[in-house]
Every structure is written in structure tokens, then in C-alpha cells.
């Protein structure tokens, strides 16, 4: 298989030695079928063992190898070297603090994800022997797209509102909240509303749409947020017309 040599300009940051990040360039001979993650693995295995980054599945399922590749939030396991120019700049995902090299601190995202209760809130808890919660294919279709989120946080890296706005809950968490709100088995919508329908929730989004453009699973978080805005507005007027209505 043919080899092509690339210059990888990788952002490095060692909290013990560096006061700020710097770039280090590596020359990497790549095979035709390599993805960016293979090239980064080559650096780790052959050129500098101290390079830190996250990865696991190598097949766009685990969502852990997100990086800025030539300024674009991308999964490094899904970005083929053969589509790349000879010089590639690799940085940690934007809008997150850098822990070390390409590893970012994800605590803020994890906290926000937990805050929207991204799990099924059932009306009555069933015992295992009582069987599963039934759902028709049509009911499943309403939200299936939003179940495909792999929590890779590329959408947070692409979102200027997350970068600039203090406290924005962010695209993936709001898309997952929408996923459960649309689920016919779920009754947790009003419990999620305190976070989802707050100023830091859907109303902080101004529909830049970058989240949906970079999403590797085509979840379309921007669409989910706009749909939630409409549902939340309807809720407001319904509450105004019929106070104390059953939700």
C-alpha cells in the first residue's frame, strides 16, 4: 500500500512544565486507508510516548477521540488522511479546558448532561417480571434520531453560544432531554423543564446550527432545541389559559 508523508502539527500542553500550550511537529508516513487517529497513534508508538489523547473503539461509536482537525471539530477515527492536505493541525476540542496535550476537561459537560435527567422517567416503575414498557414503531420513530448521540461533544466545540455564554446547557444535553421528552414511555418532561426551558437552556441558543453540521451521527441537536422552544412556548400559553392543568 502506498505511503504518503504528512506533517502533523500537534498542540502539546504539559501542566507540570508549560505555562501555555505549544505546537510540536511530527513527520508521519501514512498508508492509504489511515484515519487521523492512526497517524496520532503512530506518533505515540514511534515518535513520542508522552503524547496524551483519548480514544477507544476506532469506529465512531465510543465518541472519545474528538479533536480539532485543521480547525474543525472532528472524530479522528472518522477523518481519513487521504482527504487531508500535507500539513495537518491537531488541537484539543475547542471550548473546553485542556487537561494535557489533546485531553480536555469534560466535567462541565458531564454535570450539564446529568442535570437534564437523560434517562427514562416512567410513570410507574415496573418489576422485571411484569415485562417491558411497550412502544409502537411509529412512537419510536419520533425520537430515534436523538438516541444516536455518542456524547462526543463535537457540538460543544462548534457552539459559539457555549463558548461565549456563561452556563449554556449545550446542544447534546438538550438534544438528549428532547429525546426523552418525545418518548411515549416517559413522564419526566416537567421535571426536566427547570433546566431545559431556563435562560441557560434552550433560550440561550440562537440557532447558529454549527452543532448539527459537525455532528458525526447526524443527531441534529439544533433541530431538537428549536422543537423544544416551540413546545415550551406552547406550554407557557397552555399554563396561562388553564392554570394548574394536568401535565
Amino acid at each position, binding site marked *: 500500500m502506498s505511503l504518503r508523508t504528512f506533517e502533523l502539527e500537534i498542540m502539546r500542553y504539559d*501542566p*507540570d512544565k508549560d505555562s501555555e500550550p505549544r505546537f510540536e511537529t511530527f513527520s508521519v508516513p501514512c498508508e492509504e486507508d489511515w484515519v487521523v487517529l492512526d497517524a496520532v497513534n503512530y506518533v505515540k508508538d514511534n515518535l513520542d510516548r508522552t503524547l496524551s489523547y483519548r480514544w477507544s473503539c476506532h469506529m465512531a461509536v465510543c465518541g472519545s477521540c474528538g479533536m480539532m482537525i485543521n*480547525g474543525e471539530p472532528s472524530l479522528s477515527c472518522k477523518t481519513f488522511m487521504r482527504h487531508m492536505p500535507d500539513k495537518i493541525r491537531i488541537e484539543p476540542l475547542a471550548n473546553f479546558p485542556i*487537561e494535557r496535550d489533546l485531553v480536555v476537561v469534560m466535567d462541565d459537560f458531564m454535570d450539564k448532561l446529568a442535570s437534564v435527567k437523560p434517562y427514562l422517567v416512567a410513570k410507574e416503575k415496573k418489576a422485571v417480571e411484569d415485562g417491558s414498557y411497550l412502544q409502537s414503531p*411509529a412512537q419510536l420513530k419520533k425520537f430515534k434520531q436523538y438516541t444516536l448521540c455518542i456524547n462526543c461533544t463535537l457540538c460543544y466545540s462548534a457552539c*459559539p453560544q457555549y*463558548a461565549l455564554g456563561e452556563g449554556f446547557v449545550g446542544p447534546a444535553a438538550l438534544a438528549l432531554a428532547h429525546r426523552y421528552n418525545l418518548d411515549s414511555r416517559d413522564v419526566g418532561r416537567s421535571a426536566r423543564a427547570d433546566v431545559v426551558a431556563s435562560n441557560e437552556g434552550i433560550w440561550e441558543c440562537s440557532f447558529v*446550527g454549527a452543532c448539527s453540521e459537525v455532528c458525526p451521527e447526524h443527531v441534529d441537536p439544533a*433541530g431538537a432545541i*428549536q422543537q423544544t422552544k416551540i413546545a415550551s412556548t406552547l406550554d407557557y400559553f397552555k399554563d396561562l389559559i388553564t392554570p394548574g392543568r394536568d401535565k
Partner: protein
Amino acid sequence: MSRKPYIRTLSSTSWWLAQPRYIRYMAREVSCVLIGAYTGVIVVGLLRLSEGANAWAGFVAAMQTPASVVFHLLALAFALYHTTTWFNVTPKAMPLQFGDTQVPGSIIIGAHYAGWIVISAALLLLAGV
């Protein structure tokens, strides 16, 4: 080994120059300024109309100056950009599903364009054009 996370800063005034998609977004947002200004011109026109024939003639003359024509062309371009960009994202905000079948986005977008054409034609008819 100690933890010392590094926080990158983002310019609050020039962040949108980093990506073409951010520039497109800002163009869409700025378009509302032009549409707002055009609305202001229409309101002034109505006020002049209520003040009599002379005031109205003055307004019409002002509308025919080169600066006014350039402003109207610019406002039209931004209004078209504003309208088409919003129409094109309507399937995201208002998806339709009947039973097991989801309505294709192209139909939802097409319905908006059709509505736009029908309303525009009705207004032109009413205006006697």
C-alpha cells in the same frame, strides 16, 4: 503530577471570523437590522401619507434618490437571504410525522415557498399591479 487545566480564551468580538458557517450566521442575524430599517422607512411613508399630498410627494421623491435605491436593493438582498435561510431550516424546527411516515423536509420547505408566492401574488393583486 498536578492538575492545572489551561483555559483558552475566545475573542467576544471576532470569534465569528473563524469559520465561514459563523459568518453566514452573522449575516443572517445582521439581516434583521436591514429589515428593521426598511420597516422604519415604511412607517415614515405612512406618516407622510397621513400628512397630505405634498408630504407624500416629498417622500416619493426621497425614495428615488440614488442612496435610497442602493438602500432598498441592499435591504431586498438581506430580506431574501433572511427569508430563504429561515425557510430552509423549518423542517428542523417543525418536523411532521403522520403515523409511521415522516414528511420529507423538501415538502415542508416547498410549502413555505408556495405560501410566500401565494401571499405575494394576493398582495400585488390587491395593490392593483
